[in-house]
């Protein structure tokens, strides 16, 4: 099992923990952190799988750079919204959906 595969498997575990976190946790900032964990997991998988082969592959690295920036933008927006929600309601959790 090469180093690349170990990274990829770790990435999968991080991703799964992140998804579980977003779904199960109530506190908004922790949910956003869980989303970041998901993102990091995906990037690890992307780069890890590319490292299985011997040659250095620049395309996944460029894709991960792009992905990091996109995740950053999303996190910034989410945090701004969470902050505003806290300022307006005093709580850092989403209100219950009224009907289901």
């Amino acid at each position: 099992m090469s180093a690349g595969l170990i990274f990829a498997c770790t990435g999968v575990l991080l991703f799964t923990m992140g998804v579980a976190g977003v779904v199960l946790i109530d506190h908004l900032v922790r949910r956003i952190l869980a989303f970041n964990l998901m993102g990091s997991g995906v990037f690890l998988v992307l780069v890890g799988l590319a490292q299985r082969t011997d040659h250095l592959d620049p395309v996944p690295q460029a894709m991960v750079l792009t992905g990091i920036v996109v995740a950053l933008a999303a996190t910034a927006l989410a945090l701004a919204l969470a902050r505003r929600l806290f300022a307006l309601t005093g709580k850092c959790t989403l209100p219950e959906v009224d009907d289901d």
Partner: protein
Amino acid sequence: MKRMAVVLSAAIFSFAMIAAMLELPTPVVNLSDVVAAQMAASGVHHPVTAVLLNFRGYDTLLEIAVLLLALFGVLAVAISGTKETVAAPSPADAVVQTLARIAAPLMVLAAVYLLWIGAHRAGGAFQAGAVLAAGAVLLHLAGLLPGWGPPGIRLRVGLVGGFLVFLAVAGAMLAQGALLQYPPWQAGYLILLIEACLGMSLGLILAGLFLFLS
């Protein structure tokens, strides 16, 4: 109950994924060879920069749009109604301020270096912009740079300027050939131009994501 279900399905999913990944064959398409073959025509010497700004430059274009978009969203939320302010750290802490004053010019220098070296080694506009923004945030946290209010015209030009330059170059190339098709002898200069403008804008955008909320 829901917790059990989620954790169980997460565990099953992880096992399935890891099992699937352990039995992967070698990939059919080998892009690293194709990249290496085309490096001469790309205008830079580092393969990741070449992919990021030339071969897959369209991805980079859209990614800057994402970042700019996040900034618009942050502005839309920060500026409606009264601004709540975070208690700024006490500005009387002389040690932090001195450190910030010493660090800030060095960070600018590091940013310019990162921008320039991107053509030859890991670096480029994003890294440079991130360092610039970190410098701005550092100055703010030390109490030397106030938070930003609604952006005036100069700040707005700075924020979208890099993206507009990128779009303009893309459009100009469209007139001669395909979108973002740099002629090989001009590619290096165009990439440097785009990276420089983007570096500045990215620094402002990333700093703005923090400072517009403060």
